[in-house]
């Protein structure tokens, strides 16, 4: 019974706009890639626009774009499919080109720079390593650190809400400090295995966030190294590796800006 409505929208979309519709842009790849089969943002089919030896993976932009879980995953899935075939320059989520000809003109005018960037990530993958604070060794910390230990004993003699908060805060601080130290060691050990390393933002909970550009051949070695570090500092830091990913962190965020401004 919903069939008529569905057909209706499909017809509308066709009629609305062969030329004028905004495009959602996923990424840029060399011209020879296959069209990704995974559905794009808002379920739209993905197609390729080719120009000057480059192609852009696009789909019709949805009327309203929000950071919904399934749309974020769709963005990621399309790029994964492209990355599996070779180098790709991933766009940030929610980048639109107002019209197809704007996009094609951009590919044409920025061709040299884009090609150069594609060469920069050819044969490489991004692995992202995150580390979160683990309080597994806090007992050890309290016993070793004289300040914490005496604060703990004082709190025990005169326990009240305020004292407990103060004690807990001091422990949390110590635990975090140890985790940060471990995180620095992890990056120092892993960076030599990578072509490039980019650090991300950290906070009180996630004290390590770094992306590593690796030659595909080095991925296994890198994972082994992460596992070894995870064992070594597991009582202070939980490590997680995500990837292989399209090289989000290793593309010039604004190629046109560096040339134009």
């Amino acid at each position, binding site marked *: 019974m919903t069939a008529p409505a569905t057909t209706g929208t499909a017809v509308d979309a066709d009629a609305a706009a062969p030329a004028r519709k905004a495009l959602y842009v996923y990424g840029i790849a060399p011209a020879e890639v296959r069209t990704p089969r995974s559905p794009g943002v808002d379920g739209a089919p993905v197609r390729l626009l080719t120009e000057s030896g480059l192609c852009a993976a696009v789909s019709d932009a949805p009327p309203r774009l929000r950071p919904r879980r399934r749309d974020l995953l769709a963005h990621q899935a399309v790029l994964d499919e492209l990355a599996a075939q070779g180098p790709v320059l991933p766009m940030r989520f929610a980048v639109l080109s107002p019209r197809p000809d704007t996009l094609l003109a951009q590919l044409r005018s920025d061709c040299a720079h884009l090609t150069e960037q594609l060469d920069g990530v050819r044969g490489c993958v991004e692995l992202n390593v995150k580390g979160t604070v683990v309080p597994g060794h806090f007992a050890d910390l309290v016993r*070793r650190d004289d300040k914490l230990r005496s604060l703990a004993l004082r709190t025990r003699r005169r326990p009240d809400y305020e004292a*407990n908060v103060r004690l807990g805060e001091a422990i949390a601080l110590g635990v975090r400090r140890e985790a940060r130290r471990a995180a620095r060691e992890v990056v120092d050990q892993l960076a030599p295995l990578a072509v490039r390393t980019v650090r991300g933002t950290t906070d009180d909970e996630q004290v390590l966030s770094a992306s590593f550009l690796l030659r595909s051949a080095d991925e296994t070695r890198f994972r082994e190294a992460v596992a070894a570090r995870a064992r070594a500092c597991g009582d202070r830091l939980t490590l997680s590796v995500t990837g292989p990913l399209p090289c989000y962190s290793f593309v010039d965020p604004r190629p046109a800006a560096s040339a134009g401004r």
Partner: protein
Amino acid sequence: MITYDDEVVCAPRAGTLYDVLELILDRGMVIDVFVRVSLVGIEILKVDARIVVASVDTYLRFAEACNRLDLEHDVRSKTVPEMFGSPVAKTVGKAGARRTARSLTDKVRDVLAPEHDREEEAEEESEGRPRERAERGRSPQRPRGRTAARPRDDDDRPRSRPRRRTDEEDR
């Protein structure tokens, strides 16, 4: 000996959407002639997902766990495995890590998928607690003097947590 190191804490997690969120949203290319749609609510989402550790609730949990440690005599010469081997420290470390991680992922899941039902969360909560309580009940080496202090300690804690625990037991 330190089994949780290998099994629980160290096992590298598989990537979730949360793990790539900042990459998808903050890295990657933006070209000037293109338009980046401004995503209402995304900043809040990211900040909200993180505020977990630096909270009074966490502090109180640390303090509570700390109050159960044996600090009366100097144990600094002990080896690390001995210290982690004590049942109390082990459970606390484990539960603490797991709970922190859970609260984080839950929050993200809630934000990213508001339609997600909360039953699972409640289930996980009640699964963690009884074990912790059992452990506390049978800890044998607690010095005499501290038993007197315990009830007061309990009184000092905010009411919400113990009460929630009984709710779960009734179910």
